[in-house]
């Protein structure tokens, strides 16, 4: 089981409490699709992904980004048992969506860059430590049911 200090809980709750899920979700997913274009393979039914500009204006991608952030919210609300909270989601990504689990790390990295850009100097070194720990637990839980 993952151990969280009070400070880590406070930092992660603090980040989410000030977050615009739509803005950050959209920006993170768009950045992932642009910086790591092979991730576009999972978005065949999402309309025009022709270049960075069309990706950034794509409403289906924006909506999906929001969905992802709400998914992370579930991990936030169940920080002491992310593994089981995400068991079904992990199976979905493995058996139905067939997403290479390495891609979770790529999206996580983009999320970190977008949040750092939003928070500026408030994204201190200690904040980054806690945030990346949270994301690594999420990424690990999402990959857990792959078989």
């Amino acid at each position, binding site marked *: 089981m993952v151990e969280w200090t009070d400070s880590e809980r406070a930092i992660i709750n603090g980040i989410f409490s000030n977050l615009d899920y739509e803005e950050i979700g959209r920006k993170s997913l768009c950045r992932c699709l642009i910086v790591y274009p092979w991730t576009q393979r999972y978005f065949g039914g999402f309309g025009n992904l022709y270049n*960075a500009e069309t990706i950034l204006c794509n409403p289906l991608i924006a909506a999906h980004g929001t969905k992802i952030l709400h998914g992370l919210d579930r991990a936030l609300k169940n920080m002491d048992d992310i593994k089981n909270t995400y068991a079904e989601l992990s199976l979905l990504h493995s058996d139905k969506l067939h997403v290479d689990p390495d891609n979770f790390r790529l999206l996580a990295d983009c999320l970190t*860059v977008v949040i750092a850009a*939003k928070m500026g100097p408030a994204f201190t*070194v200690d904040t980054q430590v806690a945030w*990346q720990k949270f994301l690594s637990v999420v990424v690990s839980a999402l990959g857990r049911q792959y078989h």
Partner: protein
Amino acid sequence: MSLTDKDKALIKGFFAKVSSKAVEIGHQTLARTIVVYPQTKVYFSHWKDLGPDSPNIRKHGYTVVKGVLDSVDLIDDLVGGLLELSELHAFRLRIDPANFKILNLNLVVVLGLMFPDDFTPQVHVSVDKYLALICLALCEKYR
């Protein structure tokens, strides 16, 4: 994943904007690398103070990031241009190449943090490609 003319233009333009802040970028990048990925401390066991505000971290962070920024002048032949640096990393420093990726991630986080409006996704992908090519060039002499 080689650099297109568009990549090169975006990288040069962005680096011209950020180079005046190289000291701060370097400091933040190395400090975050060491604190967020503590396994990287093994390469700095000769320094007593490895706290994020240590003068050694500040100075060395600048050395590393300046290398990354200045290498833009060698962008048409990174492998050739970085041969000596590659020899240094291969034979003297012997840094496991996995750590280059860790440093790159922290550099990208710091660039996003310090230049949120300029570090657009389009600039990010070009810079990411450039950093990956620098890694390859640094690894050239490893084996």
